[in-house]
């Protein structure tokens, strides 16, 4: 009993956690009539595959996915690069103003994004980036939290590594990318995953800086779908499911590398 009790507890709460997903999938499988009939059962009782083509016909989700992947992928890569470099510098290099700069970086975490939204929009427009991939990507290419995490990862490496490499005459850049980066790989994956999720799941910024349908990302497409007159709950759930799916797949793929210790390193200040 004592051995299965934790599993029972975890399963019970786990069911609560995934229950909305199961409900979503179940509703996505139904036709409109049974989807709008109240029911507690999670088993759809039917598989109305027509929902899938219907959803894709209602909005060009193919194009939305292309945009979202392109944007989130580029953001993710850039964030890894900028935070690797800055994190290393803040952890291992000695230079005047290091403390103040780092505090400033951390401080930017505390400014609500909504408060600096319009000044950013004005900047994007003046740069002529309105309705372009640049507007969706560039402002998100660095973020304080990733820099912080990466710095913690480099701090956690034993100092001997650095000293040995320096004695061998290895420059900072070679060390960072050839020796340092592989050593902090769990953190790299973590930062990449979080950056991807953050970009893929963002809504307000893409809504404001893009106009053309060909530049729309999936979250914007989903809200457009939502405001649709006389909304079809089954199609809505189908759309939600296909929007959620890539992040779930990505997480499953990344979790092999995404070990807890990566985040654990972030805590020891």
């Amino acid at each position: 009993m004592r051995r299965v009790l934790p599993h029972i507890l975890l399963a019970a709460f786990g069911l609560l956690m995934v229950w909305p997903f199961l409900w979503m999938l179940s509703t996505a499988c139904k036709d409109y009539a049974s989807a709008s009939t109240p029911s507690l059962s999670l088993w759809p009782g039917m598989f109305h595959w027509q929902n899938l083509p219907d959803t894709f016909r209602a909005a060009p989700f193919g194009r939305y996915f292309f945009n979202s992947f392109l944007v989130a992928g580029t953001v993710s890569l850039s964030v890894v690069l900028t935070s690797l470099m800055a994190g290393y510098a803040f952890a291992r290099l000695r230079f005047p103003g290091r403390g103040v700069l780092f505090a400033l970086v951390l401080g930017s975490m505390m400014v609500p994004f909504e408060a600096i939204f319009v000044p950013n929009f004005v900047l994007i427009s003046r740069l002529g980036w309105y309705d372009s991939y640049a507007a969706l990507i560039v402002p998100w290419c660095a973020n304080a939290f990733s820099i912080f995490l990466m710095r913690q990862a480099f701090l956690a490496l034993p100092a001997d590594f650095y000293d040995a490499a320096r004695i061998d005459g290895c420059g900072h850049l070679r060390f960072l990318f050839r020796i340092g980066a592989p050593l902090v790989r769990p953190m790299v994956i973590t930062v990449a995953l979080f950056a991807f999720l953050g970009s893929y799941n963002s809504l307000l910024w893409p809504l404001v800086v893009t106009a053309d349908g060909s530049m729309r990302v999936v979250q914007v497409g989903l809200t457009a779908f939502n405001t649709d007159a006389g909304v079809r709950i089954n199609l809505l759930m189908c759309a939600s499911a296909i929007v959620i799916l890539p992040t779930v797949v990505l997480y499953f793929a990344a979790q092999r590398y995404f070990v807890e210790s990566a985040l654990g390193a972030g805590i020891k200040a």
Partner: protein
Amino acid sequence: MTRMAETFAALPDRLLALLDSLLDRFPRRMGDIPAAVLLTAPALLVLGAFSFTPMVNALTLSLRGGKHGDGAFIGLGNYLDALRSGEFWQSLTVTIYYVLGTIPAMLAFSFLIALVLHRISRARGFFRTLYFLPYVTSVVAAAMVWRSLFNPRGGVFNLLMAWVGVAPQQWLLEPRGMLHLLTGGAVNASIGPSMALCCVMLFDIWHGCGFMIVVFLAGLSSIPREVEESARIDGAGGLRTLWHITLPLLSPTIFFLGVVGVVRAFQAFNSFYALTQGGGNTQDTRNLILYIYSQFYDYGYWGYATAASTMLTLAIVALTALQWRFVGRRVHYS
């Protein structure tokens, strides 16, 4: 062919070497400065352009009256207006309810789950994934699902209520206080968080606890097994070990999650926005960010809104500093 591939593969290395040799050309007395400039420049450029500059712009904006930042310089007028406005304080109250209602509950729940997860060996990865799942999904998509669940007419929550024999509830549409409803009307309806706000909190606890669980697991796995085992050998019971050994050793984790959680909770926007259709027009689910947002984007009072957001930012900074000062000191570092 192979030579070409080799050359190509060596290209990054050669580039790095080249950059390093360039850095070496700087006088030795400059130390790490050239490298630091090179390495921090990309991040600082982006942050400078899209975080710091707008921050300063927002600050100067907050000293101007009128709409869209084109009014006259009025000093601290906007700040005083905000402090005198009932709606400002009302939305701050909502924010505070939200912070108090989510962070402790999330910490406790996540800690419990992480503790159990840490003990088991079979199916651990499976369960961890299960609990982390909500965190990776988009708030927009998840909120759509939850809005359907909360639907007062035929929504799943009301079906569950009927199943256990409780009257159907209005959930996200219920502006009356949770305490009022729970006590059968003994408490005034305007006291405490509304039921709608509690629904938003529930959603965010669901959505955000995966992150905390994973961080807690990280913290737990960094505690050497021998420490707990030796305590147990010394005759300490499970709860005593937890209280005297595990919790103190985990205090940096708890502290970290507390600080990050509070900062994020003060800035909560997406869930409010997506669940209540733009924050709703009822005051009970309009937190400070939504209030600022509507003053800014819907009504065009840029100066006023940036004044309010500046005060919010200062409050967050001050609160974090306080946490650091008074709680952070007691945190046990191994």
